[in-house]
């Protein structure tokens, strides 16, 4: 079964108009930059066009027909997302621009109200800058301390360091990625959340890489905050989601002040709106939230279990093949079951930027650089890595092309 793939990738590819594209003067596009952003199926593109063509209107505050239609479509998306991650209530789903804004919202609103001098915020060495810089800013402002759980050479978190931090009894928040965008490591969030909660410490899960690629259930996880981005899961750019458990959300002060997030504004005082609107100031990104709805439908239809299975399958194949290439160092867990569909590596003294340029000549889009994870780069003692990352429409033949291009790079650089 796994031989033939867990679902019909050729059929899926037909839903993605961009995959018909030729690049670099006629080469078929091989898109292996999915951890940065994924491509969009026609249904998502059409949902956005349909909105602008048929019922574009500002929402929530008007009674005309199009405003109603737009409001319903916008709020239906919220319901769909609540269901997708199994939130208890739609009130716990806040739309942001992206994962980055979602985490900043927590840092500004919850963080400034709860983190005090000498408190600790615990993150890890594998975090994306979006889950580092907001905490640097917060802890510096408050005179609190930022602590990093290390990562071993094998790509796994050093859980004893984490437990030591907890034992200090000074930790106010743990914020950790469920899947590394560089190493692919799937982190033991169940254990992290359970042991943090034993100490009464809330946990934020950066789900930017996990929610698009595997089944995620916030109630089962019991996480307190979860952040992710639509554009990394077939959806449009400009939409992110912040999930917050209701009892925490109810106590959070507002973040952005403005229209839509208020109930009553008087000159010197304001009553804020009900959840979740209190946290959505100003005209939202209506069209793209509605577009995101179609993306969720697409993934639901495939089934997240099968998405995960497909990625294990192709990642395993890629790891097998790349390990046969001379001069290659691969980062992250060796076992494909412990990692997402992300393969970061270096080859000889070829800088990743140069490698990406050579790949591009072959129509292959990979990413190179620090992947917004410079703390991890310092830990790995490299300036940068190359990264190939997969999604539902990638095939083993594409992996083969990628390996061929690696050989070509070796030829050019005489390695």
């Amino acid at each position, binding site marked *: 079964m796994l031989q033939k793939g867990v679902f019909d990738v050729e059929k899926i590819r037909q839903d993605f108009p961009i995959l018909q594209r030729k690049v670099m003067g006629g080469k078929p596009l091989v898109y292996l930059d999915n951890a940065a952003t994924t491509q969009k199926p026609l249904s998502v593109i059409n949902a956005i066009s349909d909105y602008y063509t048929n019922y574009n209107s500002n929402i929530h505050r008007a009674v005309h027909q199009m405003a109603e239609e737009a409001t319903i479509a916008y709020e239906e998306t919220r319901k769909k997302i609540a269901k997708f991650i199994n939130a208890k209530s739609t009130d716990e789903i806040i739309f942001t621009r992206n994962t980055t804004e979602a985490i900043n919202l927590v840092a500004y609103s919850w963080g400034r109200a709860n983190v005090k001098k000498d408190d600790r915020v615990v993150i890890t060495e594998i975090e994306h800058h979006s889950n580092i810089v907001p905490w640097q800013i917060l802890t510096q402002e408050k005179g609190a301390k930022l602590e990093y759980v290390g990562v071993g050479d094998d790509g796994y978190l050093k859980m004893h360091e984490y437990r030591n931090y907890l034992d200090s009894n000074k930790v106010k928040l743990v914020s950790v990625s469920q899947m590394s965008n560089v190493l692919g490591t799937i982190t033991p969030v169940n254990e992290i959340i359970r042991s943090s909660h034993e100490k009464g410490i809330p946990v934020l899960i950066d789900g930017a890489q996990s929610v698009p690629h595997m089944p995620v259930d916030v109630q089962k996880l019991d996480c307190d905050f979860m952040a992710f981005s639509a554009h990394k899961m077939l959806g449009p750019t400009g939409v992110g989601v912040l999930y917050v458990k209701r009892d925490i959300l109810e106590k959070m002060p507002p973040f952005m002040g403005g229209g*839509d997030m208020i109930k009553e504004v008087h000159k010197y005082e304001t009553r804020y709106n009900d959840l979740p609107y209190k946290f959505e100031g100003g005209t939202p990104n209506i069209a793209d939230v509605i577009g995101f709805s179609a993306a969720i439908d697409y993934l639901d239809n495939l089934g997240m279990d099968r998405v995960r299975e497909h990625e294990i399958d192709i990642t395993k194949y890629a790891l097998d093949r790349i390990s046969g290439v001379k001069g290659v160092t691969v980062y992250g867990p060796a076992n494909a079951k412990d990692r997402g569909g992300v393969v970061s590596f270096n080859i000889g003294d070829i800088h990743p930027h140069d490698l990406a340029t050579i790949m591009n000549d072959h129509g292959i889009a990979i990413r190179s650089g620090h992947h917004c994870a410079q703390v991890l780069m310092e830990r790995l003692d490299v300036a940068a890595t190359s990264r190939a990352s997969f999604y539902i429409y990638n095939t083993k033949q594409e992996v083969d092309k990628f390996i061929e291009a690696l050989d070509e790079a070796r030829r050019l650089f005489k390695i």
Partner: protein
Amino acid sequence: MSDDIYREIILDHYRNPRNKGKMAEADVSIHDSNPLCGDEIDIHLKVDGDKIKDIKFEGRGCAISQASASMLTEMVMNKPLTSVKDLTKDDILENIGLMNLGPARIKCALLSLKVLKLGMVKYYADRDPDSAKKLQEDSRTL
């Protein structure tokens, strides 16, 4: 459609609201507003044993919200709390004869019920925390 909504009886309740005004020594007073349009409703209750002995409302807003509030006060006056507790969205819409409102206008029609439920949350808070909790949940769906 507008002809169905703005019938004689709605306009009558809008222009001659029943049980509108302040109340001296209310057992519970509660205020809420509809963030969509700014409509505001205050409800004051006097409770006698298990019964709503008196109810008054104050408010400003559209014909639907104000007529609905006026009709609600008539509906629950002298009724046992237990029956008021279970009032649903549909009970209200039937009562005012507007079953086909769009989602925006429904909020107007249901604002007074939401405020009444929130008032009962306050009333039950110490007396019967379970009912208070259920009413709180209810009010969120309105």
